[in-house]
Structures are given as C-alpha cells and as structure tokens.
C-alpha cells in the first residue's frame, strides 16, 4: 500500500458489520486513533439499533488557522452536502471530541451499490471535515473565481499545531508545506525524499502533474505568513495546482492527497528505516557466519561437546 487511503478501514469495517448483523443484539462502543491525532468514537446501543453515533476529534489547530466552533471553515456545509438525510449533526459534540454525528441506518438507500458508496463516504469523514476549507479553495480554482483572500496565504490544519499554506489565485493555487520532523535521521531521509519529488516531476511522463519545488528557506509566496510558521527543518515543498487538476471527479482525490502529504512522506520515511534495519540484521548474520568459518574445527567440536548443560 503505497498511497494513504481516504476511507478509514476501522469505520468501514464497523459499518459493514453493523449492517450485516442488524438484528443481533450487540452493543458497540469502540475508540480508535488515526495518524496525526484524529480520534474516532463509535457507539451503537440496542435501544436504537438503527442509529450509530460517531464522534470525531480533530488535530489541534495552530493560531494562524482559524476554526469556527472547533471545526474547520465550511465543514458543516460539506457534511450536509455529502451525506444528506442519512447523517445528522449533534450539537454540542460529545466531551473530548469536536464533532458528533448520528447516522441513521434506516435511511440508507436500498440499492446495494449506492449503499456501499454512502458507507464509503461516511468512512471518509476525515477527508470531508478536515478537507472542507481546501475543497472550497480548490473549487473556486476550478470555476476560475477567486474568494476574498486572493494572493494571501491561507493557513489550513493538517497536523497538531502545524499548518500548511494555500495561496489562491485566479489561474492557479500554490500550496506550500513547511516540513518539520522530530528525529534527525528523519530529517535527512525526508530531505532526500523531497528532492526526489522535484526530480521525478522533471521526467516526461509526469508533465501534467503539479509543478513541484523544494527549498531550504521559506519561498516568496509565504511573505504574509506569521513568523512561527516559517521554521521548517526539512525545507519547504511547493506545489502549483492548476484548474486541470481539480475538475470534476479529480477534486476529491486532489484534496485528500494534498491534505495528507506530510503524513505520506512521514509514513514512507518510517518504512524506509524499518527496511534498513532488516537489511542490517541480515548483513550482521552473514558476517557472523563468515567469522564462524574462521574458527578451527577443534574449537567448534569443543564448543559442541560442552554446549548446553544438562540437569540431573
């Protein structure tokens, strides 16, 4: 699995199981944590077997990314548009969470395909809620209109206490990520990965992909941004998104990919480190075998004879 998937497998599993076992009397109360501090809490009680209560907690936004009642800009409208009558927002949300939804399984469409599509959409709640402001900006781009913030960097949350910036303009949107990592090895590996992004974009096959740049210092697009957002130990990545990338069906995928870019790079850096450890262990085994060959046979025999001790 190279790419991060939009629907959460945890939610999808629970929703499917719930549908299959609608008449059996089982209470569900599960919590889980996903990458970048997103928590889910799903509850079903047998008093209302057709109703699921889903609570979502979002990463803490930094000061520059404004939030309206704890939710990103445009989240509520996005939820209503995506789910229709199946989902109802409960206000106030449960303790410790930012959003609580009541999902009515009775209102699901009876057509199998449409039902699965809605369940998939419910499992992608993260993309709908967190990606709402980005989706609005990119939709403006696809319709070639500009909102009130044209030319100014808009801060959006993607990680706890960190944000990335989008500079919307009439014909393109520039997305800038300050990349920060905690571990020094992560920083070096991530820097080499990010430089590969720039290299890969240059190959002919990817001419239609967004233009990609990496720089150690903050790029000029971030001139209006606050100081605290301008320190990044693995450099700044800039993508230039054209209307071509956000037309029609591509909008959702683009939103998800841009939203989880940092998580994607971080995931692959960790995979890389794990792979290196496996290789090093294998190499150590080979070397120890080579050393064993150096031992004389008499020694080996002695070791075998006086090997494991035995108890009487």
């Amino acid at each position, binding site marked *: 699995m*190279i*790419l991060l998937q939009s629907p959460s497998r945890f939610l999808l599993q629970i929703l499917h199981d719930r549908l299959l076992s609608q008449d059996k009397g089982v209470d569900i109360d599960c919590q889980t944590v996903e990458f970048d501090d997103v928590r889910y809490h799903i509850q079903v009680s047998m008093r209302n077997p057709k109703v699921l209560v889903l609570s979502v907690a979002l990463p803490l936004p930094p000061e520059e990314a404004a939030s309206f009642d704890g939710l990103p800009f445009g989240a509520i409208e996005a939820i209503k548009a995506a789910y229709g009558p199946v989902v109802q927002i409960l206000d106030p949300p449960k303790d410790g969470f930012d959003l609580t939804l009541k999902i009515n399984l009775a209102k699901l469409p009876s057509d199998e395909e449409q039902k699965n599509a809605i369940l998939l959409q419910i499992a992608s709640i993260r993309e709908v809620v967190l990606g709402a402001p980005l989706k609005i900006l990119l939709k403006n781009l696809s319709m070639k209109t500009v909102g009130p913030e044209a030319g100014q960097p808009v801060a959006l949350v993607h990680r706890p206490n960190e944000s990335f910036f989008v500079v919307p303009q009439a014909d393109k949107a520039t997305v800038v990520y300050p990349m920060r990592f905690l571990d*020094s*090895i992560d920083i*070096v*590996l991530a*820097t*080499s*990965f990010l*430089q*590969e*992004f720039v*290299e*890969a*974009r240059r*190959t002919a096959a*990817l001419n*239609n*992909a*967004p233009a*990609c740049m990496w720089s150690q210092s903050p790029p000029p697009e971030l001139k209006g941004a606050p100081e605290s957002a301008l320190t990044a130990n693995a450099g700044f990545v800039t993508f230039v*998104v054209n209307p071509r*990338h956000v037309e029609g069906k*591509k909008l959702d*995928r*683009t939103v998800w*990919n841009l939203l989880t*870019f940092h998580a*994607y*790079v971080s995931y*692959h850096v960790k*995979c*890389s480190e794990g*792979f*290196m*450890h496996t*290789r*090093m262990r294998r*190499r*150590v085994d*080979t*070397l*120890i075998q*080579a*050393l064993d*060959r*150096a*031992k*004389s046979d008499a*020694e080996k025999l002695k070791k075998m004879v006086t090997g494991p001790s035995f108890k009487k």
Partner: protein
Amino acid sequence: MLTGTWQPVRINSLLPDSHFASSVYLRPSLFQIASPLHSTSVPPSSRSPRLNWSEQIDTGSSVVNLLSISKDSTMANTIRLYLTCIRNTLEAAMCLQNFPCQEVERHNKPEVELNTSPELIMNPDLICRNEAEKCLIETPINSIRISMKVKQADELENILAKKFLRFLSMRAEAFQVLRRKPVQGYDISFLITNYHCEEMHKHKLIDFIVQFMEDIDKEISELKLSVNTRGRLVATEFLKQFI
C-alpha cells in the same frame, strides 16, 4: 632486504596496466615483506607526470602510506589495491604471542589497550586510500587493533554509515573481534588478541576482516540506493494521482 634495524624500506613498482603506481613503506623487522605489487624497480625518469607520488610523512611515530590515484583510474581498482595492501600488512603483522602483563602479576591484558610500555608496541601503520578513508593498524606483541574510517560523501551517507556502524558495534559480543567503541577519530575498531589467533585460523581471520571492510562499503551504498529508489517510487506514485 631484511635487516635487524628499524629502517624504512622503499619499494617502487608499477602495476601491469601502468595507470598508477604506489610506494609502500615497510619496516623490515616484520618477517614478511608485504608488497601488494610486483617489485620491479623503475627509474624515476620513466614515471608518468600525471601520477602523484606517495611520500614518507613522519607523523610522530607513525609511517604513512599514501595511495593517491590519478583521475583516470577507476574506483574498483583503488578499492582492490587498498584492500590488498591492508591484507598484506595484516598478514605480516599478525604474529602474536602470549605475553603476561608486566605491571600486574598474574594478569594478561592486550597491550594495545594499556599503552604503558613503549618497547612492546611497535610503530603503528596508517594506510590511506584518500583523505576520507584510512585504516590504522597498531601491533603490540599480544594484540592487534585495526581502526577504520569509512568514506562518507554526503549527509545521507553520513547518517547511514553512523547508523550501520552503531548497529554493528552494539553487537560486538557476537563478533568477538569487534571493539565496542571505535578509537578516537575513526568509525569502527577491531581488537584481535593472541587467544583469537589460537582459536581461529589466521588467514581466515584476515579474510573475515577484509570481507568485513568490503561489506561495509557495499552495504552503505546499497542502503543509499534503496533510499533513493524508494524516494523516486514514492514521488512518482504521488504525482501520478494528479494526472
């Protein structure tokens, strides 16, 4: 050729492909002359002007062997030469015998770690491939300490080498001849005592050390390659999503 004193001996020779030459300085008190090259002496006038010459640099008590290679030769040649030189030096130097400690009664310690009596510790030998890679061989009477500095071209190779060598050093117990901490200024160190020589065949031990050095180089370049390949793949997959 063999004298009883500690005079440095100079052996000039040319490799068959005559791309480069090197001078190897050795102490004749070692009973085997370790020469990686055919010893055909060549008059100075026929030397190619492109080549750099190694010079005897007396850095205190150590004699430095410098193998400076001209730009035309390939990297593969230099590593062969470097490893062969190390192998031959080790073959000459690995004549260890048991030697009870002079300071403390009934103790038997590797003299290289103690560093107390100068008469027991012979001149250390430094073999340099270039400024970044070198190998120090110290040979007192009952032990050998071999310290290596590994080539680290850029930041990524730097952390990969550090990570890998720390990984190995932590498993020094399993390797027996590895030292847990490298000597100051080097990346990894071996400590071979006379007991190891008694247990293991000498030539196989030297084989192991040379293979170890080769493996480290290979492993670091393979790790770097895997990181770059993975980076390329990750980037391509991500950017393909937008098309």
